[in-house]
């Protein structure tokens, strides 16, 4: 089972929810931090990193001696990453998504692929929880291929929890695609609602069931709850705006460590999700 934790708005508590969820599941859980631009699950889970793998993207390099300036590479590229212009062909590696179409279609075999480093994928253990995270190279902007490399480590026999980046753009879609369920963590404010609406719109086209967790639930207004009711989105859990949670978080403690009574709520959350998507949360078919 694969559950993505997303939010729309940043800073609503995705990591807070994802890490406590992983912790109550213990050795049944695998947590994968897909927010490769600023992974932070490690701060709360304090894993021991056991492996580090470099992730590269194949980008084009053109041999102008062989090039006949036919223009096929430029026609197929949707991102202007390779452009025949004047009497030459220019590659823009930082725009390349690594699909390989230009080198495949080149009739002169003038294009070969060279690796461009995107970052690393690290794996390890956080107590009984299997831990995976991606870390993008500083200065790099192409997150989706690195996120796919993180997701390639998903283990089918685990309850895989994907901590998504904020927003509703390519890195978020890349993360949630293929998940069985998406938990949207939001806050009951106009900002939370606005970004929740955008993210729900983006994710609903993927056909993945969505449930909502409202963090800092005793601030703001009722608009997020109204939105959930109108859109038929189940409200899975509410977490209050509590000083003890904030103090624990500032010290790097999990929510279920600063508020132990929440352990049962998170166990119930896994059961509720399993029921919604019709997969038993316990046993071999997990």
């Amino acid at each position, binding site marked *: 089972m694969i559950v993505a934790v997303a939010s729309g708005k940043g800073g609503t508590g995705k990591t807070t929810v994802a890490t406590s969820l992983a912790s109550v599941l213990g050795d049944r859980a695998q947590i994968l931090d897909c927010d490769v631009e600023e992974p932070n699950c490690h701060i709360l889970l304090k894993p021991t990193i056991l492996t580090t793998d470099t992730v590269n993207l194949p980008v084009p390099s053109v041999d102008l001696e062989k090039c006949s300036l036919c223009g096929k590479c430029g026609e197929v590229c949707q991102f202007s990453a390779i*452009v*025949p*212009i004047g009497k*030459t062909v220019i590659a*823009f590696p930082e*725009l390349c998504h690594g699909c390989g179409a230009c080198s495949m279609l080149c009739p002169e075999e003038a294009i070969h692929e060279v690796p461009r480093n995107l970052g690393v994928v690290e794996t390890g253990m956080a107590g009984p929880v299997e831990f995976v995270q991606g870390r993008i190279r500083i200065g790099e902007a192409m997150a989706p291929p690195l996120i796919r490399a993180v997701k390639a480590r998903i283990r089918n026999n685990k309850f895989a929890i994907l901590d998504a980046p904020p927003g509703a753009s390519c890195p978020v879609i890349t993360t949630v695609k293929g998940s069985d369920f998406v938990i949207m963590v939001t806050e009951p404010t106009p900002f939370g609602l606005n970004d929740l609406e955008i993210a729900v719109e983006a994710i609903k086209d993927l056909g993945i069931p969505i449930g909502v967790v409202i963090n800092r639930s005793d601030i703001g207004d009722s608009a997020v709850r109204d939105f959930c009711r109108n859109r038929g989105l189940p409200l899975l859990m509410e977490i209050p705006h509590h000083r003890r949670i904030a103090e624990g978080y500032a010290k790097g403690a999990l929510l279920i460590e600063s508020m132990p009574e929440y352990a049962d709520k998170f166990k119930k959350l896994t059961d509720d999700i399993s029921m919604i998507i019709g997969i038993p949360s316990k046993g071999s078919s997990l």
Partner: protein
Amino acid sequence: MKIAVTSTGKTIESVIDPRFGRAPFIVIVDDDCNLIEAIDNSKNVNAFRGAGIQAAKTIADRKVDLLLTGRCGPNAFTALEAAGVKVGIEQSGTIREAVERVKRNEVPLADKPNAEAHW
């Protein structure tokens, strides 16, 4: 000499759009400011990325000698330089006024990009 100008409209009296890749029109004129072609650049206006590169290709394919615009980013500049198109920057007012400035040698030519890349 063929001159391309980034423009808000389709005529030589149109006002220059200072953005290179995302200008709604690219107007091509000769030295005497006779209109050769007004290219609809609308598909580039909302491009996610690579707008400047595509606009550079559009004008390079038409064998333009000089571009008049406001700002030109690094990728577009690389492409224009490779195609041998000179880049006149910091232009404003109408297309006709800018072409007059070319005749008076008052247009600064860029030797490097004068705008940041868009992410």
